[in-house]
Each structure stands twice: as structure tokens, then as C-alpha cells.
């Protein structure tokens, strides 16, 4: 069943902090850890000395011990037959790619801390986006080091192979706003491209985590998650996705005890997991929201507006709405934090694909130039797929609907104008103009239903 915006609105809402599944107080008693860029580190740098020491100790443990190197690698994936708790549970091509690997590295790092007897250990990251770090870090090429494995592609241990710029590019996912799309593209490149470029154990899921460089690669992918989020612009973790927030994954702590974690436990690396990355600055803080059912909300129709048309040609003038009787109510509600005022436009249809979209303004004062930066701008009407009569529809014609939150616009408009009227203004926009010629709509568009409504929490 396709997503329906209305269905979504009915099944979504509000908000209390989710419960953590592990003891944050115990964790926060330790000092904050900084994951360092491996580039400047040498084989004698404390982080790499401790990492190598821990690997040696872990390799001596039996495969069935959760603290062993083999067991830890097998949590990601293994070719060893048999089944043990948490084996083969890595997440690729699923909604949990970023979050699962963050959990995995977190517990792995704690185990390294214990096995190296270095309570200050933090996993370095491989910053291959820097052109000076495209070769395998030197300490990992020394055949006498525990950081070394011969199971790498040709040239890596000899120091002749290096990562191509296209393998490490972050430009394919950083500009993307929706979480799962950005995550999926990051999983491809740089994540997957780096894996297959190194090859050998790293080139295949069931063997990848046996190579010590794996964890530095994934520390970088984890850092990139923070960097993506920090760009803002609507980027957010999937806080409305209940499965993402609550699906539990199993790991082991440094004492071999089972630990379960969810997406809600790994939203804020510094605050929840006590680590940051070198030079990353302040991390974005996000919080889990508990979804409440639609029936805790009530909706009230405030004003039914007449249908209107957007004919071909220049923009029609503003649509005047008489709000005299509802003015005070709307103004009061626009200031309430638990209430949304919405402009709902339904039964929208065009006779053909319009070559423009429309910016929608509520309460734009007369003579004011429409600008999407202004408080009167509430969103866009862009018809594509739905609502176009002359296009083949896979499952029949469906008119389009749009809903805009107009609290801010209402507050701005009604606090300045006591006239009892408010304009609804639609401004055609497009890809560009020819020689300064104004953009013109070329389709007949009808908006069959329009109304102002209020949505609020029900009083109990």
C-alpha cells in the first residue's frame, strides 16, 4: 500500500523521551573519549599500541568466547558454521546500517579497552576523504604487527595501492536530506566502495571484520553520519519510524554479558555513548519521541473556503478570505504550542502537467513582495504524478491534496491587520525565465476544496 499523507497524519504524533536500554550513568562516570584521525598516528601512538595489544589477546581466546577476535568478527559476519548469539547480525541494505554499526563499534571499543588494559582507548578513524590518507595506514602494513593481515588485495600491504577519489566521495550522500536515502547512498559510497577496493577479507561481509582496518573504516562511516546530520537543512534521524527506534540488537560488553541496544540508544554519540571525533565540533542532539495514536487529537473546521481556479496565464490576484468572525480565535490558537492551524487544499486537478509550481502565502500584506523567507510563506503546490488529468494513471485518476501548517503566517498577519480579511496568494515559479519574461502557468488548475482547520490534543 502506498504511503498516504492523510493516513500518516492519522497515525503519527507526540512525544516523550524514550527509555534507554543500558546504564548511561555507569558509562558517563568514565572520561569522554576522542576518536582520533589515524593519519598522523604511528605504530607507537598509544591508540594503535593498545589496539594491537588487544587484538593479540583476543586472538588467543577460543572462538566461543564473546570477547575473542573471531567472535567479535562473527557478530558482523562469518563463514564458520554453527550458531552463537548475535553472529551474522550485521545490517546492510536495511534501515539499520548506520545505527547497527554504531552499536557494534561502541561495544567492540569497550572490549578493546579491557583487553588492552588501556582505559583511555578510543578507536581511531580512517579519514580517507583526505587526499593524504588514501593508502592503507602504515602501521597496518607491518607484517609483524597484530594490525596486519595478508588477506588484502594486491598492493595494499606493499603500499602501492590506494583508494580512488570516486571510492571515497561523500558528494553522493551528503546533499541528500531524507535519512534513509542518505544512509543508503553512504552505504554504497564510500562504505561499500572502500570495502571492495581493499578486497581480500574486507571485500566480503562474512570475512570483513577479521581485518583490523575494518573498525577504523567503520569509525569513519560513523563520523560521516554525524557530519551529515550536522549540515541541518531538515536532516534528522528517523525519529518517527517506530521500527527504527525500537528494534533491538544484541552485543556483548567487556565482561561478556549480553547487551541489547536500539536506535534510541545511539542518537547522540557524545551524550549517550561518551565519545566524539577529532575536530568534529558539537554534535547534533536528537531525542526519541514516543508515538501517540491519532485519536488523542481532535480536529475542528474553522473556515470553509470557496473553490478557486488557477487559469493559464499570469498569476491571478490574491484570494480574499473573510475571517472576521474567526479572527480572534485563529490569533489565539496560532500562539498555542499544542495546536496547529492548517490550510487544507483538496481535490486539486490540472488538465495537463503544469510547467510551474506555486508558492503559497497566507496573509501576505498588500504590496509586499512574496519571498519564501517571509513568515507568510507556508509551502508549495507542485503537481507531479497525482492530480493531472491527461496523464496515464496506473490505478486511475487521483486528485492531489496539500496541507500546510499556517500558525506562523496567521500570527504575523493577524497581529498586524485587524481588518477581518486575509489574502491567500499563490505565486507561480519555475525553472527559469527567458529574457526576463515572467513565468506563466500553462494549465487549467482547479482547487475543489479549501479550508482552515485546527488540530489539537484532546482534553482529557
Amino acid at each position, binding site marked *: 500500500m502506498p504511503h498516504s499523507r492523510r493516513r500518516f497524519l492519522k497515525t503519527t504524533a507526540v512525544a516523550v523521551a524514550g527509555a534507554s536500554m543500558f546504564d548511561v550513568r555507569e558509562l558517563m562516570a568514565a572520561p569522554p573519549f576522542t576518536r582520533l584521525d589515524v593519519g598522523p598516528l604511528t605504530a607507537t601512538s598509544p591508540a594503535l599500541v593498545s589496539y594491537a595489544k588487544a587484538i593479540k589477546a583476543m586472538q588467543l581466546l577460543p572462538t566461543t568466547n564473546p570477547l575473542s577476535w573471531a567472535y567479535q568478527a562473527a557478530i558482523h559476519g562469518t563463514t564458520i558454521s554453527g550458531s552463537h548469539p548475535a553472529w551474522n547480525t550485521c545490517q546492510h541494505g536495511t534501515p539499520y546500517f548506520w545505527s547497527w554499526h554504531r552499536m557494534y563499534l561502541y561495544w567492540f571499543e569497550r572490549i578493546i579497552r579491557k583487553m588492552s588494559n588501556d582505559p583511555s582507548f578510543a578507536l581511531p578513524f580512517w579519514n580517507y576523504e583526505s587526499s593524504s590518507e588514501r593508502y592503507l595506514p602504515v602501521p597496518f602494513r607491518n607484517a609483524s604487527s597484530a594490525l596486519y593481515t595478508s588477506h588484502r588485495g594486491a598492493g595494499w600491504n606493499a603500499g602501492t595501492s590506494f583508494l580512488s577519489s570516486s571510492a571515497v566521495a561523500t558528494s553522493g550522500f551528503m546533499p541528500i536530506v531524507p535519512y534513509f536515502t542518505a544512509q543508503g547512498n553512504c552505504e554504497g559510497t564510500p562504505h561499500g566502495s572502500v570495502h571492495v577496493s581493499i*578486497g581480500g577479507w574486507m*571485500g566480503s561481509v562474512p570475512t570483513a571484520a577479521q581485518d583490523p582496518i575494518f573498525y577504523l573504516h567503520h569509525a569513519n562511516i560513523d563520523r560521516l553520519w554525524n557530519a551529515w546530520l550536522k549540515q541541518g537543512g531538515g536532516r534528522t534521524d528517523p525519529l518517527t519510524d517506530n521500527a527504527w527506534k525500537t528494534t533491538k540488537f544484541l552485543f556483548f560488553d567487556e565482561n561478556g554479558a549480553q547487551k541489547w541496544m536500539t536506535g534510541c540508544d545511539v542518537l547522540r554519540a557524545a551524550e549517550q555513548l561518551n565519545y566524539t571525533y577529532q575536530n568534529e565540533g558539537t554534535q547534533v542532539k536528537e531525542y526519541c519521541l514516543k508515538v501517540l495514536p491519532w485519536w488523542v487529537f481532535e480536529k475542528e473546521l474553522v473556515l470553509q473556503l470557496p473553490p478557486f481556479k488557477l487559469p493559464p496565464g499570469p498569476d491571478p490576484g490574491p484570494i480574499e478570505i473573510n475571517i472576521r468572525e474567526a479572527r480572534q480565535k485563529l490569533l489565539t490558537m496560532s500562539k498555542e504550542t*499544542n495546536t496547529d492551524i492548517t490550510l487544507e487544499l483538496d481535490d486539486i486537478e490540472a488538465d495537463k502537467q503544469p510547467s510551474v509550481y506555486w508558492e503559497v502565502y497566507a496573509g501576505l500584506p498588500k504590496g509586499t513582495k512574496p519571498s519564501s523567507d517571509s513568515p507568510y510563506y507556508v509551502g508549495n503546490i507542485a503537481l507531479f504524478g497525482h492530480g493531472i488529468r491527461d496523464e496515464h494513471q496506473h490505478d486511475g485518476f487521483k486528485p492531489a491534496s496539500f496541507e500546510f501548517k499556517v500558525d506562523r503566517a496567521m500570527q504575523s498577519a493577524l497581529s498586524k491587520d485587524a481588518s477581518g480579511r486575509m489574502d491567500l496568494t499563490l505565486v507561480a515559479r519555475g525553472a527559469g525565465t527567458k529574457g526576463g519574461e515572467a513565468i506563466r502557468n500553462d494549465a487549467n488548475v482547479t482547487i475543489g476544496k479549501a479550508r482552515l482547520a485546527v488540530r489539537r490534543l484532546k482534553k482529557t
Partner: protein
Amino acid sequence: MRTTIIAAGVAFAALAASASAALAASSMKTLVRLAPMTIPAGTMEKTIPVNIRGVQTQLLTAAKSRQYDVTLELDVEAERSPQVFYEVYLSAPKGRRYHVGNVTLFGAGIRSEARGEFHPAHVQLFISDAVSLALRKSAAHALEITFVAKGAEGGAAAKPVAALVIHNAEIVAGPRQRS
């Protein structure tokens, strides 16, 4: 009560963002659908012609619009890891190639590594800029998509050891996802 009110404010903001995402998902439009194809093991480069006759205007309008993204959507799989990734380029015939991203199989999409039910990997490449550039000086009725096998630099070129099967390939326009 105060907690509830604050919480409600947060939730409405989240609700509005997700409603936009849901709307975006419902407005995707396939402009071109390509036939399934296979890039055999050992093949370093393969170019596929894409007939855009009849949709050039829509394609270019969507590509140039600030409201839309044009994406190349691929469902891909291999029997085992090809041990390379594929750089993907878009061009007008005989025109300059523009790199639009990579196709990489690691975990997802590899049949021999599947746990439970197998699914091809879905790859989404954003090609608006490349479409605009490729069609800027060309009235061509075709585009070309080229896959170039790639591994580590600095040594002999890595050859794919398994065939890459592309089940579905579509050029799609939908509400913009980038900023």
C-alpha cells in the same frame, strides 16, 4: 501539562517533516524504463543507450527544476561479490561523460551471502545535474549510461569476477531530496 505541551510542539514539527516525505514518495514519476541487463564477469566497461524520445522536455524540466530530482534507480544483484565497484557515467551520445555515482555490492544484493530471503540491492543515483549538462548542447533523443569497473588504484586494474545483473533500471523524477 507543561511537558505535554512541549512534547506536542516537537511532535507536530516531526509530523510536518514526515508528511512532506510521504507526499514526496507518492509523487514519483517514471520517465524512462530500461530493459534488464547484465554486465558479464571480466567486462571493464559497458555502455547502454537510453531512448528519451518524447520525454526530453519533461526530463530536462525536472532536471533543471529546484523542486525536483531526477534519479537513476537500479535494482542490482550478483551471485557473489564482483570484487569491484562500478563508476556510473551519464552522457549524450559522443558527448562528455558525467560521473553520477557508483554501484557497489557489499552484503546486500549478493546471492551467495544472503541471510534468509534474498533481495536485490536498490541503488539510487541523483542525475539531475548530469542530465542538464549532457542535454545542454544536444537535442539528442538518447542518453548513454556507462558502467566502468573500478578497484584500488596504483596497480593492475581489478577485473570483475562475477556478473552484475540489473533487473530494473528506471529514470525517475520526484520531489527534490537534496539541499
